């Protein structure tokens, strides 16, 4: 086989007829098929590894860590979801995604997404390839929220790579379920915030707990009285099905689910849930930079001023503040992790 012709096929430089001829020859040969697919995979992984980080329009944090792509399966092509319920459960199950409007979206146009979309999805891409973006923040005003779990995950050292504390999912379970399924809007928002972070971590790490986490989210949504929760639950049902089949290619579904949950919940409490769960992971990893970030300070400051915060929540917040890493003293990381769990328990139950 002419290697340069096949390279031109990879580059999209062949005419339709020549492309078809070459694909037919490749498909007919085991070695050529493998070589074609593997070369494409290598090129895609290297492209993702070289993808630029989001622009740092302001920084107040320590220098970012070195950027190193992980070998997680990457989705450098980021689908753009539209809101439409599945055409039928069968369709959705077969497709593995909500059956969105599939107007042809050329890959090239998605790769050249406009700057503002890149600002939103930059953290998604960073989290998916495990790039540490601590210290490299999106352009946000002082009042901006940490309402995207992917941003929270991206704040972690090494982002979404494996390294979450053992048993993080069980701790979450104990703290936030404990038999109490009260649909209180505030509490549900906190729980969902925390669960969204866990889902991102599990999916990126291809952790088999993804299935159980999806089930938990479905249960929380189903138990709630939030208008539109059923549609959101449907999305996570698809994640659950894929996870049950060992398919971790769920990023588009998680993106859809995030948008839905963000639209359903109280943004203050959702933010607290997102931050607190990411912080628990950071504490498990002894990631001091997470806690030194402006985002952390902003979230804690805002949480302390919430008018409907109960006393137990305010006390738990104060305990977390007192346990944060500080110059001149050693950090009690297990203690901090425990206090963050207590905060989640206080705010989410």
């Amino acid at each position, binding site marked *: 086989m002419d*290697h*340069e*012709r*096949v*390279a*031109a096929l*990879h*580059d*999209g430089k062949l005419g339709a007829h020549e492309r*078809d001829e*070459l*694909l*037919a020859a*490749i*498909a007919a040969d085991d*070695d050529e*098929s*493998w*070589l*074609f*697919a*593997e*070369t*494409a*995979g*290598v*090129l*895609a*992984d*290297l492209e993702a*590894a070289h993808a630029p980080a989001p622009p740092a329009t302001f920084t107040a944090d320590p220098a970012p860590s070195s950027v190193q792509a992980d*070998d*997680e*399966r990457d*989705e*450098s*092509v980021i*689908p753009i979801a539209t809101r439409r319920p599945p055409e039928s459960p069968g369709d959705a199950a*077969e*497709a*593995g*995604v909500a*059956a*969105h409007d*599939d107007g*042809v*979206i*050329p*890959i090239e146009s998605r790769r050249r997404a406009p700057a503002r979309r890149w600002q939103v999805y930059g953290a998604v891409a960073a989290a998916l390839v495990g790039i540490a973006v601590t210290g490299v923040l999106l352009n946000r005003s002082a009042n901006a929220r940490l309402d995207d779990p992917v941003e929270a995950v991206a704040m972690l050292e090494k982002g979404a*790579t*494996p*390294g*979450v504390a053992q048993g993080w999912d069980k701790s979450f379970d104990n703290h936030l379920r404990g038999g109490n399924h009260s649909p209180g809007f505030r509490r549900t928002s906190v729980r969902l915030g925390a669960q969204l972070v866990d889902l991102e971590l599990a999916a990126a*790490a*291809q952790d*088999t707990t993804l299935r159980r986490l999806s089930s938990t989210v479905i249960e929380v949504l189903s138990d709630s009285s939030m208008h539109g929760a059923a549609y959101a639950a449907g999305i996570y049902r698809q994640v659950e099905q894929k996870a049950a089949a*060992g*398919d*971790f*290619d769920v990023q588009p579904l998680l993106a859809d689910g995030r948008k839905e949950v963000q639209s359903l919940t109280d943004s203050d409490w959702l933010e607290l849930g997102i931050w607190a769960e990411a912080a628990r992971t950071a504490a498990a990893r002894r990631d001091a930079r997470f806690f030194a970030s402006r985002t952390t300070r902003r979230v804690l400051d805002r949480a302390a001023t919430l008018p409907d915060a109960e006393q137990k929540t305010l006390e738990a917040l104060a305990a977390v503040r007192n346990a944060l890493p500080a110059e001149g003293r050693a950090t009690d990381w297990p203690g901090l992790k425990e206090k963050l769990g207590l905060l989640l328990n206080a705010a989410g139950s």
Partner: protein
Amino acid sequence: MFDRLEPEALFLVHLPWIEEVAAMVCRRNSVWGDDADDFISSARAKLMENDYAVLRKFRGEAEMKTYLARVVTLHFMERARERTGRWRPSAAAEALGQLAKDLEALVHRDGCTLAEAGERLRTMGRTVLSNTELGRLLDKLPVRHPMRPGDAGAEPLEQLAGRHGADERVVGDEEERARARVLAALNDALDQLAPEDRMLVRMHLADGRTVADAARALRLDQKSLYRRLPRLKSVLRERLERAGVTAAEVLETLQRGSTDAAE
């Protein structure tokens, strides 16, 4: 005609890329440590061979980086075959992701126990899963036997006793005819597909590549593939049934084929 110096200059300019490609191919195919370092050196040497013959052949019809990526990946494929036999990740592992591929390689290719594989993967930072959880993942993968070239021994073949008796040979012939019929029907059904569809079936349904991988490789819109692939499966199913072959027969034939090959 290239200036004698130009290929060498091209090589040096693209050397970082060549090494990156070589490292990435290793990572994707569960080759680590010294073996990966060896391969990277070998890739460099390959491209320098015969006065940079590979670079001299380049005509400028494709991107140089893409061309080099293909050449390095080909070198990996050929070298791996010499050393470890015709090892490829199973379709199941391919579909389950890199961790499954790594685990499969360690256990079924390299002969590690589950505990050894788990220890190695955790030490390399490639997972935090426990051995129990890795065991559950391993259960989803087919049992594999490495197809390694081996020494068949000096004894002339005609002196070796046949494996099967006469009755078994008759049954074996019938099974072989049935298998040939099924495979012929499958090949016909595939041949009737457009080349791009054939590649999609190959990559996603046969080799277990994700929809995203197939979309990227073929430069297609990923979301539209979620509708196209189920339609392709229906079409194949219909064509096979018209040829008197059920999907179950195809599956059984293919599974039996992989078992036989492993013996």
